[in-house]
């Protein structure tokens, strides 16, 4: 087993040495949208041809690496500073997990191979009035014959402008308790009535989008799971992607992220050295935690708040680490006006990484929400009395 794993590691290493584009960070720094999409799709295709794009999918759909192999794969990709799959992310994780867990055979046949061919997905969950309190979403879907007619507005749809398909939560029963009247749909983004508007974020780029839905018709065949069971479908699939994607990010932080921090730092200054050692220790703890969560997920022994612990710790560690990068970088850190696209949150353009770190502490359940989950689901503390 260990011998096989070592062999697998060696083969991934060889592959990385031959395939990770040399100097991609410099080449992708500050590129426009078109080049970013081209590069992402080309890298996805390259990974896919090696069997590394969707290692977590079942074998019959093009994946089938064991969890231990996936851990090795992400460790090596990070160690070789490979570009990150940004554009395909929602498709290969959220969409696939949803379809595999709750989709029909027809839906899987239609969409899973298409994802491998490069179809891009976006998540249409949040709304202006439904952020942390996602279950209060208002976008409505009304059944008319063989279709649903959808009206509403989605917010923070990351990558929306490039998306071919959208994972959409909409309310199908306005009279039911809020979590019991939501349904889960697959929306073709070319459907009439879908309008995408860009939102410029704090670092100046526009991968977050608003999606306006005006009498959009979705065929009933694109409903995932039962009508009004969308909340459960969403919960199951949100949890499914947490472990390994976090492990990948932790490994990246431990490789390129920390390496650059050390390179940029006056390490002979004892105060700087002390803080670096503190960060290295914390990153090591994070990596261990991620491995443990992935293994426990596999064994079915993960605790109810484990994913929240990892998300919270990663987010805040990232924020402190990038902040330190800015501090160490001095004035020069402020002159880096662009960062390499296709990197993670450890691009080495510390100011942009630092400002961008709020993209971790706010979305996907803000740090405050994570703390509440850890306390209530993990430690069993009593819920806040309801405001209503």
């Amino acid at each position, binding site marked *: 087993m260990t011998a096989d794993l070592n062999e697998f590691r060696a083969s991934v290493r060889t592959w990385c040495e031959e395939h990770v584009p040399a100097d991609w960070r410099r080449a992708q720094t500050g590129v426009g949208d078109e080049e970013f999409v081209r590069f992402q799709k080309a890298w996805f295709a390259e990974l896919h041809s090696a069997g590394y794009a969707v290692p977590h999918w079942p074998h019959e759909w093009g994946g089938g690496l064991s969890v231990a192999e996936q851990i090795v794969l992400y460790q090596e990709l990070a160690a070789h500073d490979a570009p990150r799959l940004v554009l395909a992310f929602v498709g290969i994780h959220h969409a696939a997990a949803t379809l595999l867990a709750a989709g029909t055979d027809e839906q899987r046949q239609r969409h899973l191979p298409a994802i491998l061919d490069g179809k891009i997905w976006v998540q249409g969950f949040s709304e202006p009035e439904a952020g942390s309190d996602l279950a209060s979403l208002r976008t409505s879907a009304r059944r008319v014959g063989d279709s649903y007619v959808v009206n509403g507005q989605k917010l923070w749809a990351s990558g929306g402008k490039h998306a071919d398909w959208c994972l959409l939560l909409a309310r199908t029963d306005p009279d039911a308790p809020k979590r019991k009247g939501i349904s889960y749909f697959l929306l073709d983004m070319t459907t009439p009535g879908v309008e995408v508007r860009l939102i410029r974020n704090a670092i100046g780029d526009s991968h977050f989008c608003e999606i306006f839905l005006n009498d959009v018709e979705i065929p009933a065949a694109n409903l995932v799971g039962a009508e009004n069971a969308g909340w459960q479908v969403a919960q199951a699939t949100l949890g499914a992607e947490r472990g390994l994607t976090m492990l990948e990010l932790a490994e990246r932080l431990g490789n390129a992220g920390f390496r650059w921090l*050390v390179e940029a*730092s006056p*390490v*002979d200054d*004892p105060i700087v*050295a*002390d803080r*670096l*050692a*503190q960060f*290295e*220790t*914390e990153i*090591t*703890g*994070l990596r*261990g*935690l991620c491995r*443990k969560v992935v293994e426990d997920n596999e064994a079915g022994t993960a605790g109810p*708040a484990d994913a929240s*612990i990892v998300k*919270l*710790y990663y987010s805040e560690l990232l924020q402190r680490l990038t902040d330190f990068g800015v501090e160490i970088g001095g004035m020069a850190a402020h002159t880096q006006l662009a960062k390499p696209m296709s990197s993670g949150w450890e691009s080495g353009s510390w100011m942009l990484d630092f400002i961008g770190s709020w993209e971790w502490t706010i979305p996907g359940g803000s740090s*405050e929400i*994570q*703390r*509440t989950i*850890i*306390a*209530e689901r*993990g*430690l*069993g*503390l*009593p*819920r*806040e*009395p309801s405001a209503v």
Partner: protein
Amino acid sequence: MTHEFAEFHEELRSVAGDVLAKDSCVDWSVLVNAGWVGLEVPEQFGGAGATFSEVAVICEEIGRAASANSYLGSAVLAVGTLNALQPSDTRDRLLSDVASGAVRAAVALESTEFVPDAEGADRVLVIADGGLAVASPAVTPQPVLDETRRLATVTADDGAEMLQFEGDHAAAVRRLLDRAAVAVACDSLGLCEAMLSATVGYAKVRHQFGRPIGSFQAVKHACADMQVSIAVSRQLVSAAVEAVAAERPDAATAAAMAKSYVCSAAVDVVGKAMQLHGGIGYTWESGIHVYLKRAALNRSLFGSPAAHRKRLAQRYL
């Protein structure tokens, strides 16, 4: 870690928890009879032939109970030190006597000051230039605020027998210091967990403003932070215990990370526990001060966090 080991550790943990819960002070004979002292003593000398991984379980449970006993000095350090020596009649006899409980030893590892559990010990092993002196020195207690630890200054006597470490002297001493640091980190992890559990229990039953204080976000989030740093601590401790038990080359790094992070985190965690218990937490009777003092002492024992991070940072140069 294999499944059988995990099961064995759980059993050890559960038994240790029961034994240590009986009294806040635990006699040497209890530790001996439980078989904990001889865990790492080779079977030929009457021990269990187990590893540092099992010792680590006991250390964690001792921390959880904030138990006052001489396990750290007279088992963890003493047996670890004897095992690192070249075999000799004296060493072999000492190992047997320690395992049987006939002799209680202590080790002046870092210096001759603040030697754990030297008071009342039958022998003190003192690291000396190029070897280890087996002495019966004069011992002067050094009282500390943490009443669960017994520390003392030892004054070496001249007639001591000198023993040699296996392999390089400095490397052997370094490994012993790493072991000591990790053992203390295990202790701090245990006491963190005890304090989180006590705090969560209290926050569920203590009512103010007509609701359990644990339903207030400020309290809840403080508990969540305790949980997160414990989760990270556990990873660093596990990695360090494994590395030390297997004598892996990265053991020094793993030990420095575990000691610096966990022993700092423990002071924060216990401090939060005192805060969240409110007025009761500040009373002598609540016993939280015992944990806070022990956590703070652990942080200083066998290298401050800054000293350990300094060692880590040597690798960046």
